[in-house]
């Protein structure tokens, strides 16, 4: 960084600036991040569920390792990601198939965010109370 005559910083790095896209671009970025995250969850999920074919004890052993607050918080993040991905997925379907979808995409994005908040308000408190009321083996 060098200070120029206007007292501001001239970037030294050669890379360009971050493109300043609007709701559409950020909804896509979030959709991609949540999509990849959900994929890795499904990978683990299929592995742990398949334990039941080895023995019920093996399955229980694996699942019991999830019964701690860190995994509980992880489950909250997982549900947050899935809820966003699901609602935004419906928005993308409407953009592609509904004749007015492109026109109302920005409104639909905020509807998605609203539905996400409502769903998480219903889920997160109930779930976190469940998780943390069992802390310490209670």
């Amino acid at each position, binding site marked *: 960084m060098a200070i120029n*005559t*206007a007292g501001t910083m001239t*970037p030294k790095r050669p890379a*360009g600036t971050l*493109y300043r*896209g609007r709701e*559409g671009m950020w909804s896509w970025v979030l959709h991609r991040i949540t999509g990849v995250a959900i994929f890795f969850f499904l990978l683990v999920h299929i592995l742990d569920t398949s334990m039941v074919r080895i023995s019920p004890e093996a399955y229980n052993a694996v699942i019991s390792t999830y019964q701690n607050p860190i995994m509980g918080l992880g489950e909250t993040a997982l549900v947050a990601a899935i809820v966003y991905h699901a609602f935004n997925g419906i928005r993308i379907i409407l*953009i592609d198939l509904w004749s007015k979808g492109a026109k109302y*995409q920005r409104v639909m994005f905020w509807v998605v965010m609203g539905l996400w908040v409502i769903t998480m308000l219903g889920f997160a408190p109930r779930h976190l109370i469940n998780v943390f009321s069992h802390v310490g083996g209670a």
Partner: protein
Amino acid sequence: MTLVADAPASGPAPEAPIEAFTVTLIIRRFDPDVDDEPRWQDFDVQMFATDRILDALHKIKWEQDGSLTFRRSCAHGICGSDAMRINGRNRLACKTLIKDLDITKPIYVEAIKGLPLEKDLIVDMEPFFASYREVQPFLQSATEPPKDKERIQSVADRARFDDTTKCILCAACTSSCPVFWTDGQYFGPAAIVNAHRFIFDSRDEAASTRLDILNDKEGVWRCRTTFNCTDACPRGIQVTQAIAEVKQAIMRGKP
């Protein structure tokens, strides 16, 4: 704008001097003969609120650094030569007014992204035009027009593709597309817009050929509806809407 209510009734009010501002532009420079990678350089210019970014670039080139390189032709938003990234968004330099930008901060100007950088604000447009040529952007008909007459089209038929006739091929849309940045094989919004212009033209008979071309792995299905193209278009074309209409036409099998 000045209020005239307080002005004395007799004689014209003395003309108020038009206020000039010092504007800092930080431009991403690249000279392939000297630089290994692009570098940022800042310039201070005196500008009026009604000036455009193109005027600032001219002032720099004419008065401060003649080596600054950029394209412009008509300078009035018709030729589509001076698309560049201004404060992180693709814009035409000749249509971006100083008064519409926050000049308390420096203005960042750089070349459009996703096409090979040649010098300063100039990129190689050839991959962009190659995609454009590939969609066959010209009228195709097996039948002759009526003798000594034009091909007749109803107002409604003409209105069907009116929006996509406005394209000036400035590449602001294609180079705003995150998919195009990482996958240069993607046709890009501009090529699809120009295919749309003929696919939905009632006089044209090659719609199915164009739908086949765009029903490709690198065709319309690469579109992830980020709407960057629609926001960037200096002509206000509803680009994502046009792409969605082409997607639907492919699914229907006809325009």
